[in-house]
């Protein structure tokens, strides 16, 4: 996400806020995966991390990258790209992947994504259910989409994403 883009989004949000006063809205942390913007409901987000040392877990599903130590708690790292059927990210020499730690069912999971954007407050009126033609893999982990200015944000269904891993096993 370029700097110009980010600025624009922030302005947009402030504009929204005035209108939103009586309207219902939700907060999302935006993330970028393979050029697509995703939103994670802010209440589910616990932490945003840079890249940490991950211990591989043998025999775990391929989507599970391993586990890591987050201030004394063990967090399971999930490669969201793999969940979405995308190719692994090719990183430049100084680039590092980011991850978003979410709390699900009393356990912490670290969702490895490409990069983290801003927090957006989005009005419910901009929400739409998944387009009928959406890729099946994506549909399974998407709650719906928001129409933003010039972009579409897919809402990531975190519990469903984790649950699908559970069943995979």
């Amino acid at each position: 996400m370029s700097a110009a883009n980010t600025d624009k989004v922030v302005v947009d949000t402030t504009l929204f806020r005035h209108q939103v006063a009586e309207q219902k809205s939700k907060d999302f942390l935006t993330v970028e995966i393979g050029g697509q913007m995703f939103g994670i409901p802010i209440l589910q987000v616990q932490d945003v991390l840079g890249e940490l040392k991950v211990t591989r877990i043998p025999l775990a599903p391929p989507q599970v990258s391993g586990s890591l130590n987050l201030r004394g708690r063990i967090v399971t790292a999930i490669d969201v790209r793999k969940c979405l059927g995308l190719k692994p990210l090719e990183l430049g020499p100084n680039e590092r992947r980011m991850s978003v730690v979410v709390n699900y069912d009393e356990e912490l999971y670290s969702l490895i994504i490409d990069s983290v954007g801003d927090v957006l407050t989005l009005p419910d009126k901009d929400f739409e259910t998944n387009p009928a033609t959406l890729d099946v893999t994506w549909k399974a982990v998407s709650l719906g989409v928001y129409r933003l200015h010039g972009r579409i944000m897919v809402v990531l269904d975190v519990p469903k994403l984790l649950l699908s891993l559970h069943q995979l096993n």
Partner: protein
Amino acid sequence: MDDLIVEFLTETNESLMELDTDLIKLEQNPNDKDLISKIFRLMHTIKGTCGFLGLPRLETVAHRAENVMGRFRDGNLEVTPEYVSLILASLDRVRYLLRHIEENGTEPEGSDEDLIAQLDAVYEGRDMPAKPQVAAAPAAPVVASASAPGPAEPELKAQEESVVTASGTPPVAAPVAAATAAAVGGGGGDAGESSVANQSLRVNMGVLENLMTMVSELVLTRNQLLQIARNDKDNNFVAPLQRLNHVVSDLQEGVMKTRMQPIGNAWAKLPRIIRDLSIELGKKIDLIMTGQDTELDRQVLDMIKDPLTHMIRNSGDHGIETPAERVKAGKPETGKIILRAYHEGGHIIIEITDDGKGLPTEKIRQKIIKNGLASEEEAAKLSPQQIHQYIFAAGFSTAEKVTSVSGRGVGMDVVRTNIEKIGGSIEMKSTEGKGSTFYIKIPLTLAIVSSLIVESAGEKFAIPQLAVRELVLVSQKSENRIEMIKHTPVFRLREKLLPLVSLEDLLKLTGEHTESFEERFEHKYIIVTQVGNYSFGLIVDQVFDTEEIVVKPVAKILKDIDLFSGNTILGDGSVIMILDPGGIAKVTGENNLSDNAQDNVETAQKLSSDSKTSLLLFTAGNGSQKAVPLSLIARLENVDMKMVEVSDDRMLLQYRGSLMPIIPFAPDMDLSPDVLKPLLVFADRGKSVGIIVDEIVDIREESIDIQIDGRRKGVFGSTIVGGKATEIVDVMHFLNSVHGDWFKDHGDESFLVHDKKKKGGGSSKRILLVDDSPFFRNMLTPLLTAAGYEVIAVDGPSKALELTEREENFDMIISDIEMPDMNGYDFATRVRSIEKWQKTPMVALTSHATPEDIDHGYESGFDEYIAKFDRDTLLSTISKTLARGNEA
């Protein structure tokens, strides 16, 4: 003071303290039903407990007060301040009595007549003007008697004053309480705190759990710091870190202690369960519990409570027979279940033993086939131990009827799962007709585990130290090398083949291997791991040190991977997976069948008469070399023939301060003086005999297999030893010829001839010989072997019983009578109590042969009674008895 009483005091004092505040509320709001119920419950509890603890005075007061409270509670007596005072007075009396018990361990002298009289009066509604009203509408709500207090007041006050003798205070809660206590107790008056109550503190489990988690984190942080300090030894932090290290260790221990509870807490209900069970099933069962004080982590305690209860029930229901059955089986009417707990190397062992009927091997075998757990053919091959293991399989129950107690088939597998869940193991030993023993091994705590850190394909893993037996470094170039059977690696560990599992392959850490296994397994470590009875080796690349780790459960999405029991954070901050030895054992195909079975086969083979005997080879006179079982010989001496004296026509030697008879082995030997001759000394029970021979040739391990029967006296027959024809010497013949008092001489004809034919006829008869004297065992074994029997000799009844309990088969049992740990009569009784052995001929062998002894012998279950040195009678009796057995 009794622990129970201390606990009772603590608890009661706590409840009373709570009531103190509530009582003031009661005064303000006399009709507070909840409060009345609370006091009622307390009185009720005190009453009940006192009866149990044997505190009659306290019990009476509590009982009467409870009566009155009961009326309040039911609403047919209105709570007036006067009554409240009366209740308060009762509470104070209870308090006074409690304090006395606490200080002196007993109830004080004196009686509570005054108080009881009042309480009874109120309970029965006597002596009160209010009575008619209450009686008129006993079930009516409280309102009916609302107007009564007026006239009743003075009287009650009077009553009260008789209690509150000293002060005569108005019926206000606190002062009355104080005054009464002062009056009755005569000192130490106020409702002060009890000292026993102060010694312990009730803490919410949540607080302790939290504390434990925090200590665990502290342990981890300490580990991290220590790791850093290790790399930088000159650092100023090293000394304070050491101190921190100790403090943390102590803290960890201290916090662990708060979680420790005596295992007796989990057992408290068991006597009751057994009592109910014995009534329901009409059995007589004694439950004997030892080691109640053994402490273990509360969390573990909670986990084993149910499995234990279940197993005790099983023992009572399936194990112990009805009194009639027991009497029939020759056991005491009352069955015994013994529950034992003790510490053993970081573990708690719980043993549950019953002397009931044991596991029905055949029934289980049928069930295995019926449930499709094994084919008929497979099942037939299983040893009883292997069969027994199936009771731990899911959905297995052999109880024909599902009683309310057990037999639903969800039993033992759940028990095992629960025990394994907490890192424990369960083993079992059962003998049909004799009872079963279960061994449960559980870790002291679940929270912190000592683990070995290993590496495979560059990844580190932790393996609980408890499962690790030993470490072996292997190199394909040395003796210690890994061998392959198809693609399965194995390792020779002390004469046994240890199945190996490569951690790398198991966890699929790398792709396909192209190099040969020799290259792959060059310089590896084998971690010899034991799960239950099953041992296997885990191949890893590297072994690091051990670390105390705090086990954290794996994420839910990884729960299905059986190979990990959890994960943790190491000292360096990295996350590490903890391997689950049980899971690995399961995945690698071992279904937990015990190795014991194999061991038993081995023992049985050892027992077989094919086993070799050490023979001493010598020459004497003319003829071939001779052999005598080495074990019969007490000593070998070289004796100068000059020393041999002749007295009373016997050759005697002064030997170790007494006279020992000497016999030349052959008449044609050169016995001239000045010749040194080897002397074989035979000794038993303080008596000895020397046999002079010409030359000791050798000692050889050979199996005695008489090829040609002996024709001379003193020779069993001939066999081949070391490629030479050798005479096997009948030592008994020589011994008989000298010690008239020791060895009686009977008959001269060769005893071998008529029994010998059996030998050719295929399977020989198996005889179990029980005698504590190694001398007689060694003497009789060759004698009987020579007569064509297969002999298994054991040194005592306990060993013999062990054999009879196993799947051993004997055609006859020959037993000595005089034996140290159990005499032959008792042994016979025990043998006869086992169904399988009821028809097996038993022969008593003894030097005692009075008619009483013989009668006693027959009563105990012996079929024949033979004097010990009467070898011909022995042999003919054996052959006759066996023949009779065949006809029958």
